[in-house]
């Protein structure tokens, strides 16, 4: 049994940021990560069959990828599949790095729109941590967006735009809509150590061999380990244990050899993501916490939010070659972000320019959800789309609902026999009204940009990239799991700092907010450390 000041479960976006922050304040930090380091040599971007990685070793769905370190997820009750990577760096190993911030109104949904709940903190509480995070990891973009509060000069300039993007900019200008080059956790110039500027190779979603993506394993982890953090890989945590007073005592985990071990700590931080965190807490049953740790309210696992996503792809006569260049959101249109009740729904959505994919992914239906037809005319059909299409990702705010939830599956387990999660989710009434409106706006944009055909996947099944809400933050212990510092209402040395704590989802990718929250919570733990375990 080993003892640390702080034990973190999960080395992803949140765990990495917290490990760095706590360790620079002199705390002895250990992080247990079920996955392993991904070696640069594992990336396939230098091979002609690189697109196959999307279907196999770098598949974003752990149920398909099935690495030994992945845990299965019962997804029979959800139209949207939860996606993630279980490795050092977590899901930032193969993300797209689109890095917008939430807006001030996102934290005040109850006050402004009379629905859901307000967060127990404001945008302005988080703002210094957004800035700190950007400065630590490196963000490309351009300050001055009138659609968002002011922010500091971005670490590197916006990524380059080409003829493919120009088509949409023309369309946006014609419609008079807002747009701005997105903040991206992807460096356009050299920044940090051992990282190159993005050379626009394209398939960011199967990893970044140049380390241009500001992923947790190439940003925070080298710094955190330099500060002395002990990162233990192949360590799958089964349970958070408690002492006789109901305080977190540590964890029980399986090491690489499958041996069960205990690791104790003064403070335990769970950063296993919006599915892994409720799974772990619900599996941590004790006489003091018979419904699972920190689950007196019964809310652990509830209020799961994903962001409903549609893909709207414009097909153009001229070749755009949008398969070249970073895959993520290069440009963000937030014309429809804030509530306008005349649209028939509350809250809003954004339209992200997401470029395109290579011929194989195109043939297999990567853009429209429907594979290119086989047989006579196949080449013509592929040639019409490949090099000629560019996709808009339509992402709506998902409202929190108690019935959308992660529970423990009665049968399914991981390779070690630890019970696996069961996800039940259905699209809410507001999303059902919002998404058709949002898709129609994206179609309008494609047409204004000059598209000759528009392909629509109205609800992308493989789009559970954003895992939020399952240990929600709030002031009221009956209506939330943790407080504004990520501290459990029931267990004062237990913290949750990942996307689980989101009270509402906003309509933007969550990771800049997840990391800002992680840094803010870690700061608070450092400052109050002595009081947390006395």
């Amino acid at each position: 049994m080993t003892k640390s000041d702080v034990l973190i479960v999960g080395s992803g976006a949140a765990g990495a940021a917290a490990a760095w922050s706590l360790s620079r304040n002199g705390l002895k930090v250990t992080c247990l990560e079920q996955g392993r380091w991904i070696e640069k040599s594992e990336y396939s971007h230098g091979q002609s069959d690189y697109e196959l990685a999307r279907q196999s070793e770098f598949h974003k769905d752990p149920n398909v990828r099935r690495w030994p370190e992945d845990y299965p997820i019962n997804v029979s009750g959800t139209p949207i599949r939860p996606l993630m990577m279980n490795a050092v760096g977590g899901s930032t190993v193969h993300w797209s790095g689109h890095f917008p911030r939430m807006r001030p109104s996102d934290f005040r949904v109850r006050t402004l729109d009379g629905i859901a709940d307000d967060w127990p903190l404001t945008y302005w509480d988080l703002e210094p941590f957004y800035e700190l995070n950007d400065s630590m990891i490196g963000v490309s973009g351009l300050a001055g967006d009138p659609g968002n509060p002011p922010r500091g000069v971005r670490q590197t300039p916006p990524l380059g735009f080409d003829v493919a993007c120009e088509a949409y900019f023309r369309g946006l200008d014609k419609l008079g809509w807002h747009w701005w080059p997105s903040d991206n956790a992807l460096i356009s110039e050299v920044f940090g150590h051992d990282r190159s500027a993005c050379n626009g190779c394209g398939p960011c979603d199967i990893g970044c061999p140049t380390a241009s993506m500001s992923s947790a394993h190439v940003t925070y982890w080298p710094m955190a380990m330099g500060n002395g953090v002990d990162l233990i890989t192949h360590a799958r945590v089964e349970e958070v244990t408690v002492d006789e007073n109901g305080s977190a005592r540590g964890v029980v985990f399986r090491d690489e050899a499958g041996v069960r071990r205990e690791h104790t700590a003064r403070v335990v931080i769970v950063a296993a993501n919006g599915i892994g965190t409720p799974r772990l807490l619900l599996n941590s049953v004790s006489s003091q916490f018979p419904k699972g740790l920190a689950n007196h309210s019964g809310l652990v696992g509830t209020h799961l939010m994903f962001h409903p996503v549609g893909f709207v792809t414009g097909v153009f006569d001229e070749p755009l070659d949008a398969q070249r260049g970073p895959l993520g959101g290069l440009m963000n249109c937030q014309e429809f972000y804030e509530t306008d009740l005349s649209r028939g729904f509350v809250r809003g959505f954004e339209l992200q320019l997401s470029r395109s994919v290579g011929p194989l992914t195109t043939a297999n239906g990567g853009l429209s959800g429907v594979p290119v037809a086989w047989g006579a005319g196949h080449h013509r059909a592929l040639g019409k789309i490949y090099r000629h299409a560019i996709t808009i990702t339509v992402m709506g705010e998902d409202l929190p609902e108690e019935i959308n939830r992660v529970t423990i599956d009665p049968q399914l387990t991981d390779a070690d026999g630890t019970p696996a999660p069961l996800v039940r989710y259905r699209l809410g009434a507001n999303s059902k009204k919002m998404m058709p409106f949002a898709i129609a706006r994206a179609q309008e944009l494609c047409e204004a940009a000059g598209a000759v055909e528009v392909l629509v996947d109205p609800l992308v099944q493989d789009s559970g990239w954003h895992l939020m809400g399952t240990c929600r933050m709030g002031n009221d212990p009956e209506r939330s799991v943790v407080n504004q510092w990520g501290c459990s209402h029931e267990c004062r040395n237990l913290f949750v700092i990942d996307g689980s704590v989101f009270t509402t989802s906003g309509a933007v990718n969550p990771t800049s907010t997840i990391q800002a929250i992680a840094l803010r919570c870690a700061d608070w733990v450092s400052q109050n450390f002595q009081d947390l375990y006395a």
Partner: protein
Amino acid sequence: MSERLFNAEQLALLTKVQSQLIPAENDMPAAGSVGCASIVHEFLREHEELYELVLRALDAIEKSTGDASFIQLTSEEQIEILRFVEKSAPEAFAELVRQTYNAYYTRPEIQAKLGIHGPPQPDGFEFPSFDVSRLDRVKARGKLWRDA
């Protein structure tokens, strides 16, 4: 692994089927003529569940031809059989199509015909830097976010 190998007849059938899935047209060769069957074959040796699915599709195709062999049918008859199996064994057939596309579009000679001259790395692609004046219209609209 030997039980997961296609025999010569199955390979010949796969080759013929693939050339119907991706036929020769314009300047593009048929899938069966560029070695896609052996690529799929090699791949499936390591992927048992997918092997079973593709095998099921091939069996369904063979069984649908009555006394005749698929290879001996006319092209129109072959297409008719494939359309039938696509409906009667959709999951297995979809896997057969996917494996064929996977093999075809990862062939460097096919990629060259599509204008791809090498994988994305190490060269990547160059982009012009962003012209900030493009944003003048948006800036002129002033603040667009809600105070809270």
